[in-house]
Each structure stands twice: as C-alpha cells, then as structure tokens.
C-alpha cells in the first residue's frame, strides 16, 4: 500500500474486504501475504485514528480561538 487511506471509513471498508477475502480461503499464498500486510497497515492507521480521539477530551472556546487568530504572529 503506497498511499495511506483517505479516511477512517475507507480504511475500515477496505479492511472488511480484506478479511472477507482471506476468510473465503480463495487467496493464494502471495495474495494472502500481501493482504495481511495491507490489513496490518490499515489496522495501524485505524488504531492511530482511534488513539487521536482517545487520549483526553480537549475543550476550546470559539471566542478564544478567534482572539488568538487576531493576535499578531510572533
């Protein structure tokens, strides 16, 4: 897999396709190994996405963000 997935949903969709294909038992050795490698990359990507929204809620206020934007860049 040369490029990362576009989104979590596309990653999950592809992952489901891969597992269906592997479960079918119709993939040859080369394809199986390729699918496993791609699947592991997708799992890693999805886990990272979940980690990104699992490490603690961050709460910001729109008015504070707007104020920051109005400050001159340092």
């Amino acid at each position, binding site marked *: 897999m040369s490029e990362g997935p576009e989104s979590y949903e596309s990653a999950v969709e592809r992952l489901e396709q891969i597992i269906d294909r*592997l479960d079918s038992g119709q993939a040859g050795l080369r394809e199986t*190994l390729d699918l496993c490698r791609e*699947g592991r990359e997708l799992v890693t990507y*999805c886990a990272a996405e979940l980690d990104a*929204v*699992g490490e603690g*809620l961050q709460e910001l206020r729109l008015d504070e963000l707007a104020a920051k934007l109005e400050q001159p860049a340092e």
Partner: protein
Amino acid sequence: MDLPGPFPVGRYAKTLRDELRKRARVRLIGEVTSLRQTPKQAYFELRDGEGAVPCTIWADELERLKLPDGALRDGAEFVVAGGPDYFIGSAASSPSFSFRATHLRLAGEGDLLARLDGLRKQLRAEGLFELQKQLARPLLPRTIGVVTAESGAARRDLLAGLRRRGWAGTIVWAFAPVQDRRAAPAIAASIQELAARPEIEAIVVTRGGGSLVDLWAFCDETLCRTVAMLRVPVVSAVGHERDSTLIDDVAAVACSTPTHAAEAAVPLDCLAARSGLERSAASLQRAGEGAVGARARHLAALARGPGRALKRERIALNQKTREIRAASERGIAERSSFQRRIALVVLDRAARRAAGPEAKQRREALRRAEVAFRAHDPERTLERGYALAEDAAGEPVTSAAAAVAAGRVRLRFADGRVGAEIESDGGGHERGA
C-alpha cells in the same frame, strides 16, 4: 406630458390617506423591532425574513389592551390587527405611511405553527431541506463544533454522550444565548464561524426543551437558510420533539436529545471499534500464519515425497520380483509336467509299437544281424586257426612295426594266450608274425 394635474399636493395627500383607509383591515404576524414609545403613540416595525411594515398604535389604545409588562418589546412575536394609514404631515412633522394598529397580542403557539408551516413549505420547495443531508458525515471526526448555552443540561448531556462512545477528541464551544427568542442572529453567526474553521468536521446545535415560542429562534428563516447552505454537516438537537423546529428540517441530522446528537456527530462507537479492530488484527494474524503454516506443511510433505516414492517403488519392485520368481517356478513345473506327459505318451507309443506286429520282423532282423555279426567276430576267426597279437595292455598289434616296437607280444589263440618275443631281422621286418 399628458398626465392629469397638476393637483395641489395637500389635497392629493388627503385623497391618498382616504384611499388607504378604505383598504380591508387585516391581522399581521411578525417580530417587533425598533420599538419606540411616546406619550401619544408607540412606533415599531413588524418584520419577518421577507419584509417589514412600520406600525403605530395610539397610546390610549395600547393602554386599554392591558398587555403584560414588557410584553411589547423588540424580538417579541406579535399579531397586529389594523389597516394602512397615511399621515399627511404638519407644519412641525413630516408625512409618513404606517400600519395603524388597533389591537395587538403576543403571538401564540397556533400563530407560530401556522407561520412555521408556511416557512417550511417555502424552504422545502426551494430544496433547502436536502442540501445538508447530501453531505458526507465523517465516521470519526477529530474536532467538532458545538453551539449551545454555556450553562445548561444540554452541554452536560452532550459531553456524557460523547464519553459513552469513548470519544475524547477536540470540542470547540461556541456559546450562544440559545434560550433567547431573539438569538437567531447570534446562533447563525456562531455556526458560520465554526464552519469557517477547517479542522471542524461536524457542528452540533443544541438546547433543552421548551415551547415552540421558546424555540422560535431555531425557526428563524435566515438562520435556517444559513445552515442549509453550509458545507459542514450540522446536527440539531433542539427541544425534545423531533422536527418541531425549522432547523431540524434543514440540518443533516435532527435528534431528539443532546445524547443522540453526540452519537450523530461521532457515528463511530470508539469502544466497540477498538474491540473490532483487535478482532481484525487477530484475523489477519491467523490468516497469515495459517497460510504460511499450511504451505510449509505441504512443502515438507513434498520434500518427503521422493524418499517415500523410492520406498514405494522398491516395495513394488520386490513384489514383482517375488511374483516373477513364483511365476517362473510355476512355469518350470508346468513345463516339466508337460514334458513328462509328452515322454509318457512317446514311451507308451513305443511300448505299444514294441508289442505290435512289427516285433516279429524286428526279431528276425536282429537274428540276421547276429549271424552277420558273428561271421565277423574275431573269435570265429581264431577258431579257424588264426592268432591275434596283443600288446601288454591287451590291445591288438596290427602291424610289424608295432610288433617290433612292442618287443614282446602275446598271441591269442582260440584256446588261450602265449607270450612271444619279436626278433628284429636287421634289414626290415617281415610282414606277418
């Protein structure tokens, strides 16, 4: 110019006023704005999203209506009864048009529902209900924007809903006076500011329950048109009755509670997703190991194949050898038996021949042969007086030279043997003894 006139303007103004006063008296509904009161009159504009009319009411008439204190104020929804009028002006004041109100009342639920119904039909006809619903909603947004009151149950419930999903991303709060019936412009501004931030992937607009009058800001035409045109999906959770407000119609998703709004804003249950991901990882692991293991076993079996094949061939070969040996022994036995049978047949035939009529002839022939044989028998010759010279070994000496060489011979007569010396005659030997 062939138009009528010119007429004196004062007379024209009075005619205009009289014509306007002839128009049918009606009731109007709209929001009161720009309220101004003097001892003689109250002035305000009654407006909605499409337009406005300047209104006036005499102070004494307003007094007689006995409206609750503060009821007539900017932002209040009112039903105004009256008709058009024209003030022709005076030396001290300018002329002006107004809708002369003779009766006012706060708009009730029924009035608002009727107005909402009209608005709903209009926005639906323009296709504004579908725009947000066509937007893709991210399964797992990292950042969401929320428009709500800073203090209130809605904020708390939304947070609880997000927590239950295992979501702990970033929330950008845009606090707005959502309890205020006149809050529509502030709410619309907050939504627009949130939508302008690229990191925000979904926007939630929420407040607790209330009557339609309380929630009227969320039926504001301008606010709803703003929401409909956004490219960021908006989740509405206003009040407890689904589709009671117009914003529910234009939003991507309408929810009945802030908790449901949390689920709509973050469609993925992060806790369940983690478990699912672990199962996927295990499936992949199994598939990979299984494929390699199965093939490795197959390869190992193939590697053992040649040895097994040789063994198999050797066994088969030994078996063949045994079979061939057995077959050949069987063959020999059969052939011997056959030959024995042949020999028996031949002997049998011979025996039968010997016992047959040929036997007599054969015996006669034998007798003749015996006579001939006896005629040539040396013994018969000796009986006629001849002698046979023999050497020491008993072999016949058949020439003089052999007799000389033997030196001594034995002479065999018919009646016995005697020894004899051979004498050499010096010049040769005599033929005969």
